[in-house]
């Protein structure tokens, strides 16, 4: 069975799903704008997926796996930080449009805990939690839009109190928009956070569904 034009069709389906999900909560997909920083909560490889989504959407972005509040405040180009051991930076933002130092309008955070990833970055669960807390606080202060994403699915969720759940607790309640795959939300955890904090929530079937969402949020 061949569907050469399958991706646009699926993207349209995903968009419909989002609208449906938004409608279910009486909300629409919020707008944030550019420039944008992508990062990870928990250092799993889900942030790689997020970056690939951005590329697929044709959106230029800055990426840092472990940005601090200071780096975030420094705006586009993260104050000139360079990659080093256990610290990765990628600057693709169009600096002609958004010169270095331009404040970010949005931060996209891929939630997913990986002890291997945290170990590579020299982080413990506690230090990662503390870093994320500061990051979210500075976003709130500077009115930077937080879009939290969970695309790891059910089997990467973990039990209450597990590494992954702690990452969710560290970020999701502070988000301005939650986007999760359906199987990440089988137990309704994100729905509960969404309702309790009045945060718009979109459910997608696959990571591919994120492509259309980031376009709507950022462009």
């Amino acid at each position, binding site marked *: *069975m*061949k*569907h050469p034009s*399958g*991706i646009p069709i*699926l993207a349209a389906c995903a968009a419909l799903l989002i609208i449906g999900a938004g409608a279910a909560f009486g909300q629409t997909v919020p707008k944030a704008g550019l420039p944008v920083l992508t990062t990870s909560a928990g250092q*799993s*490889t*889900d942030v*790689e*997926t997020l970056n*690939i*989504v951005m590329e*697929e959407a044709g959106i230029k972005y800055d990426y840092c796996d472990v940005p601090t509040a200071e780096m975030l405040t420094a705006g586009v180009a993260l104050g000139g930080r360079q*990659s*080093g*051991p*256990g*610290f*990765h930076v990628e600057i693709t933002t169009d600096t002609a449009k958004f010169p270095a130092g331009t404040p970010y309008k949005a931060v996209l955070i891929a939630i997913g805990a990986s002890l*291997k990833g945290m170990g*590579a970055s020299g982080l413990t669960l506690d230090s990662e939690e503390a870093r994320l807390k500061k990051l979210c606080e500075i976003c709130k202060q500077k009115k930077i839009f937080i879009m939290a994403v969970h*695309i*790891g*699915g*059910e*089997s990467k969720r973990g039990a209450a109190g597990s590494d992954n759940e702690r990452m969710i607790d560290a970020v999701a309640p502070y988000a301005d928009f939650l986007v999760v*795959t359906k*199987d990440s939300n089988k137990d309704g955890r994100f729905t509960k956070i969404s309702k309790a904090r009045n945060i718009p929530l979109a459910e997608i*079937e*696959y*990571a*591919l569904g994120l*492509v259309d969402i980031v376009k709507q949020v950022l462009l």
Partner: protein
Amino acid sequence: MTRRKIPALAGILILFVFLAGALVGQKSEAPAGAADDLIASREACTSILVGKNASADGSVMATHTCDCGVCDWTWRHVPPADHKPGSVRRILHISQYVTWPPSQGLKWDLVKKDYAGFDIPEVPHTYGYHHAMFGYMNDQQVAIGESSIGCQPKMRNSTPSAGMDLTALTLLAMERAKTAREAIQVMGSLAEKYGYGFHDDGEMLAVADPNEVWLFEIMPVGPLWTPKSGKPGAVWCAERVPDDQVSVCPNESRIGEIDLADKDFFMASPNVVSQAVDMGFYDPKSGQPFSWKKAYSPREGSAVSTNGRIQRLWRFFDIVAPSLRLKAETANMDLPFSVKPDRKISLKDVMDMTRDRSYGTPFDPVQGIRGGPFKNPNYYRQTRVIDNALAEYTTITQCRASLPAQIGGIVWISFGTQDTACYMPFYAGATEMPKSFAVGDHWTFNRDSARWAFDYTDFHVQVAYSAAIKDVQAAQTIYEDGAIARIPEIDKQALALHAKNPAAAARFLTGFCLNNARTVVDAWWKLGDDLLVKYNHLLLYDAEKRGQQRNQPAAPEWWKKAVRIFDILMEPDKQETRQGGRP
């Protein structure tokens, strides 16, 4: 300058050069960026492949040194089963790396919670097999070895759209395949249909049967793939090792140019080239032929340029075919896929290869002062050798066409680092694994766990490696060489039983394997005890003579000189104090 000072200064100079080299080495050890992950995933397992006409006894062999250091090491036997029409096979996400505390249960019970969210139609009959982290040998003599090879970062798919992990694929291959080719098709087609990745990315498998051995490589196709796309959810390729040749995979992609018209030597998914074109890894207009490894899993460097970090590929070929005089400076990507060995390779040769430490090569881990006074190869880990202190276990599978599958297939298992362990045979027809093989983890010492017996011995060898390893080698001669020597007789007896009653042959083989394993595990616990006594206080205690006389293992003169040189280098102003003999 006096003549006496010249050697001392020369020593200092050498030490400086050594330290500078070490610092340079350290820098290359920790590159920044995404390459970090690629290299990390590429410093794990080694898999050796031996064609039937390259082996001394006509067996096809494949190995897997399961090098992890924190992973599960437990083994299980899964019996064959018949399934009613309409049955389904539940698919689980099984991570190679995740373990649970023993108090919570055993991995192979707990993974059942990690349902991948879908079932696939079951086949009418599934074969029995032995498995640990992967499926290794089924009752049809289909065998597997593994090595992670990584892939282009854009290809990784850790999202749930990737329904199949590598472990699950190997278990399904064990259950469903009667030949190596069937195993490849089973794994390839399931990965295409249900998507591949999740816990894994670029991976290599040695897939063997009594006639041939294939080198199979598989990659995800990126996180934006969905099962509804109608496109394959994986890209894979397999190349057969010529029957008279040997090959190896030391955590790097080995398949280069491919000729799919030559169906006896190549198999691939339908997207094998188009995926690379779509993802920008290959331009057909470039005028260059398509190369699988260059497109999907490129790697820079050679044994020399990486300070020995990626020297296993060169080293393996240098062991098996020294007459080729392959150069350690040659980029790994330019080394051959396989070579004809200078002489036929025996099972014992393969065991020795898995214990190889690159002694006598430019990457010798004990050259100079690297190994300390007792030449311990575990001190200096800049060179990545085949024998690995992080090995959970190592397998050598033998598939032998001259015997019925039950008897022809053997997986030899050793626990822990290879040099201090002992290979134990498990026939394909054995229907049980020892209970001690099914328990234990890295964080809780457990005398009921076979693996801990080998770690126990290994730990005590580290005290005075150059002396204690000889005690281990003596034990290996008794228990490992002894088992190898017994195999022809066991084969003969099993064959006689098999002719009358295959079930009786299975019971006989099971009894032999369990009894041998129990004997070896007991011997290694005792060996650990003996080493503790013998090298206690770093002295040589003779438990038989019980005398007052004890001798410290001799610290060589060169080591004493190296200590003096180091003192001069680090604190030259204190030399007079030291030479004066004051503390």
